[in-house]
């Protein structure tokens, strides 16, 4: 059942409200309502119908767009009410027929992207004061409940039949794939034995018991549901308005990126992704800020607002984000990505200083948060990244994060072509990894003395100094560069791609876990394993046979 082919037609991750097929967004001052009304005929691929507000990647791409635009285009919104626009259901979760018909890689990337979107919802609450509440006005199953779990509060209609449920284990022989189990016990602090019962009861739990078990925050009868949600969101909006600076916020518009497409190449304004399918190799190049970009920031927040989506820091990282998503989903054969940040090191440093100066402004805060999310997307991509610090590169500040995110950083140490790397204020906390620590700290996890020697000082470093400071993986001179990097790449390309995905994911996140990193780690370690086990996706597996006349047969041996 390896169909549909993963990149029959490339998936486009860019969309805008005029193209939404599955979501309706309405605004009323500080409160926005986001109604899910999935078009059954609107699947990204053929062969399944998106009934009962079930979703596929296309539905989630729109959701991610809504969440992002809410922060940039509607900063006045404090509360987003997430509800269903259909009469008889809130959300039935990921479409099972789509999952059953998908390749393993498609399922994995789908789950990863949906997880990132759920985390973005929580990120908006934490860093933008935009709080999502779920108004569950009908049955809410699997991924539907996981979507609700990403919201701060969940209210369930009490009509004797609407329930919340995670039926994946009992019905499908797989796990909830968007953090449901982790959020149950970590975020909502549902007692783990109750979570065990809940997660094995296909029909779920409704009414007062759902409140008692902390699965939801409240239940209201159908006739009073809308009114109760309106009351709660108004109260919440008022509370949040008090906590946030009263400055008037006017959103900026996020225009399309419109990359230039040609065979083996996507060229954006600041980013370029090129690839060679046969060589299984891609090159990702990002151009750093210019003196003009720095000068613009020097003119203050108003000027930055006026630049809007053309601001380098926003535009370049939106392009990076889009390129990474394209790579993940549309270029499954590419195993190694060579990353280069080119430009002027001094300008890159000055840029980050100027950006940091304006951090108190809501828009600049959003820009920096967005940079952090794009970088986390890199951390979470199952591709080998080698950063190449050769002539013309400037891995400084936010761009140095790309070198730190890479599995290895090769740097050229050549007097004739001096390369500088550098740390800016953005390297010390503004761009955290999924598990909440800076890449610098994760990188030097075993060398705390190096970390303290660096302090929090912004500085430009020669490759030699950077190597001394533990920031370079392999320092090469001009004679060795070509040959050594070629050999490293060829060697890497010869290794098992599965083993590499696992190894890289293990090594990239030294240090303690948090809820977000647990979600992604558990997804990779457990769900993706279960997905390929015969008990789920074999000829007699539960996921394969869901909706079919035969019943699953399990191999009862525990592994």
């Amino acid at each position, binding site marked *: 059942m390896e169909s549909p082919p993963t990149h029959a037609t490339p998936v486009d991750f860019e969309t805008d409200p005029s193209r939404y097929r599955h979501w309706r967004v309405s605004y009323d001052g500080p409160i926005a309502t986001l109604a899910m009304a999935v078009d*059954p005929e609107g699947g990204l691929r053929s062969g399944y119908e998106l009934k009962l507000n079930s979703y596929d990647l296309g539905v989630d791409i729109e959701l991610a767009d809504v969440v992002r635009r809410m922060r940039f285009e509607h900063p006045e919104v404090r509360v987003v009410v997430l509800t269903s626009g259909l009469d008889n259901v809130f959300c039935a979760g990921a479409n099972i027929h789509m999952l059953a018909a998908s390749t393993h890689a498609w399922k994995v990337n789908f789950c990863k992207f949906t997880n990132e979107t759920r985390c973005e919802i929580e990120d908006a609450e934490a860093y933008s004061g935009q709080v999502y509440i779920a108004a569950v006005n009908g049955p809410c199953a699997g991924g539907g409940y996981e979507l609700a779990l990403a919201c701060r509060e969940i209210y369930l209609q*009490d*009509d*004797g*039949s609407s329930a919340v449920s995670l039926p994946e284990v*009992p019905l499908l022989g797989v796990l909830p794939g968007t953090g449901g189990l982790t959020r149950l016990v970590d975020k909502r602090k549902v007692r783990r034995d109750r979570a065990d019962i809940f997660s094995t*009861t*296909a*029909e779920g739990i409704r009414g007062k018991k759902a409140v008692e078990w902390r699965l939801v925050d409240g239940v209201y*009868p*159908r*006739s*009073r549901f809308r009114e109760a949600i309106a009351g709660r969101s108004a109260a919440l909006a008022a509370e949040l308005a008090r906590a946030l600076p009263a400055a008037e916020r006017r959103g900026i518009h996020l225009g399309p990126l419109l990359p230039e497409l040609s065979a083996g190449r996507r060229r954006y304004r600041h980013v370029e992704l090129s690839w060679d399918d046969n060589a299984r190799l891609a090159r990702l190049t990002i151009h750093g800020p210019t003196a003009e970009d720095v000068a613009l920031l020097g003119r203050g927040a108003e000027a930055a607002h006026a630049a809007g989506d053309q601001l380098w820091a926003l535009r370049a990282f939106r392009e990076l984000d889009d390129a990474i998503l394209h790579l993940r989903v549309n270029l499954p054969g590419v195993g190694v990505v060579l990353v280069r940040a080119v430009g002027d090191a001094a300008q890159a440093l000055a840029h980050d200083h100027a950006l940091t100066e304006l951090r108190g402004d809501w828009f600049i805060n959003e820009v920096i948060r967005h940079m952090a999310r794009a970088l986390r997307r890199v951390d979470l991509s199952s591709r080998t990244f080698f950063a190449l610090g050769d002539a013309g590169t400037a891995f400084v500040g936010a761009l140095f994060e790309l070198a730190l995110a890479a599995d290895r950083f090769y740097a050229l140490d050549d007097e004739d072509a001096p390369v500088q790397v550098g740390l800016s204020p953005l390297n010390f906390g503004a761009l955290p990894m999924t598990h909440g620590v800076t890449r610098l700290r994760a990188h030097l996890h075993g060398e705390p003395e190096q970390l303290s020697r660096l302090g929090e000082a912004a500085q430009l470093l020669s490759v030699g100094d950077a190597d001394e400071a533990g920031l370079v993986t392999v320092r090469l001179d001009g004679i060795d560069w070509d040959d050594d990097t070629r050999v490293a790449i060829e060697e890497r390309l010869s290794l098992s791609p599965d083993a590499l995905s696992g190894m890289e994911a293990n090594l990239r996140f030294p240090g303690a876990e948090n809820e977000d990193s647990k979600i992604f780690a558990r997804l990779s370690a457990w769900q993706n394993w279960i997905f390929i086990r015969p008990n789920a996706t074999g000829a007699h597996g539960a996921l394969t046979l*869901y*909706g*079919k*006349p*035969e*019943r699953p047969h399990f191999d009862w041996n525990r592994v």
Partner: protein
Amino acid sequence: MLSNNVDLNAKIPNNVGLADDPKLLRALEKWLPSYLEWWHDMGPTDFEDKPVYLRTAVSVENDGWAHYEHVRMPDYRWGIFLNPREQASTIRCGDDAGKPAWSEVPGEHRNALRRIIVTQADTEPASVEQQRLLGHIAPSLYDMRNLFQVNVEEGRHLWAMVYLLHKYFGRDGRDEADALLERRSGDPDKPRILGAFNQPCDHWLSFFAFTMFTDRDGKYQLAALSQSGFDPLARSTEFMLTEEAHHLFVGETGLDRIIKRSAELQRLDPNGDVRNQGGIDFDLIQRTINYWFTYSLDLFGGEISSNAADFFATGLKGRYREDRLPEHRALDQSYRLPVVDGGRLVERDVPLRNAMNEVLRDSYITDCERALRKWNRTLEEAGSPTRLSLPSRRFHRHQGIYADHRFNPEGELVSQSAWDRDHGRWLLRPEDNDYLLSIMKPVYEPGKFANWIAPPNKGIEGQPVEFEYVKLHD
């Protein structure tokens, strides 16, 4: 094992040995006052103190299981009866067909079984609620008695299902049993589970159509459950079927008597205008059939259903008269049905197990067609040129693959605008109620019948038609 002996003198008459199961007895005795309170609130309360000539189940033997006498409804002996078994039961369908049936709930199927039982159970009190005021406009004492007979037996069917919930489903089962008394037909906040059981049943035309079409769904659901591998459910529903037959009789003959009377009035009126004679015109009868038949079709569930496949595969629910079919696995077979694809109807083969709801719906529709033929014979014998018909199964659906499209009664796809224009010609309209309520005045004199309905051919249990079936003036 359970005895066949009926303990009629117990507080809860039964043949399930309640006296020997003190825990269950205590649980049910605790539920009993809540049930009576519900009956008092939501049953035909205004006639509570009137003796009604009711049939009470007193045995589970085929001959002489019922006893008739005048009783007040709250004194009716609601009881718990399972059909006896001569030999060990087997699972009748699915992957385990032929293996011994379960006398306890298998853990694997517990939730599915509970859901099946709760859904069935929920319909029983719902119909009592829908019909609670109809006694006030009864066309005769005979009909009023039939209404109350149906009501008390729906109450008994609730008992049968609640017994299963209490005995086999632990605390969850007890919670569900309580919830059955908390939901209310048509209540926006606590509706009954299935759509047809939230539709208003304001007059006797709807009542007869309901007992004809909606209770007939009940018959087929019970028949499918009587094939269940869960033996207590199979035996319980088998016995319920013996009572259900009367409900269907009430509906089928009730509509037949209206049709017969309307044909007489049609002949009587110089212009053939039934309404002019205070009767129920055939157009309204046809629209009533269209409305209730299609709402009842919804109750069978989706045409292509993974639940249906699961229930069959696991032996929880069989086909109509599964035991008489030659083959019980239904694998590697398909069922052909029309589906909407690209704006038109095309035939598609689906795996037979996934089409089990449709298979059951087929049996039901065949049965309804038989009744239609009978009514048309009545029209023929009365010399009326009118003929009635069943609409297509695709028409006016709210569940399943046809629900998102519009069809005319012939089953052809029509546009939304055509539907908006014509549906009033096909279905009940609000003003129908005004007319029906204007002609439905109560007739409480023994042997007399309202103008809009013909008397029955015979009375009940050998009693004459003019027997005082309900004693309103004791």
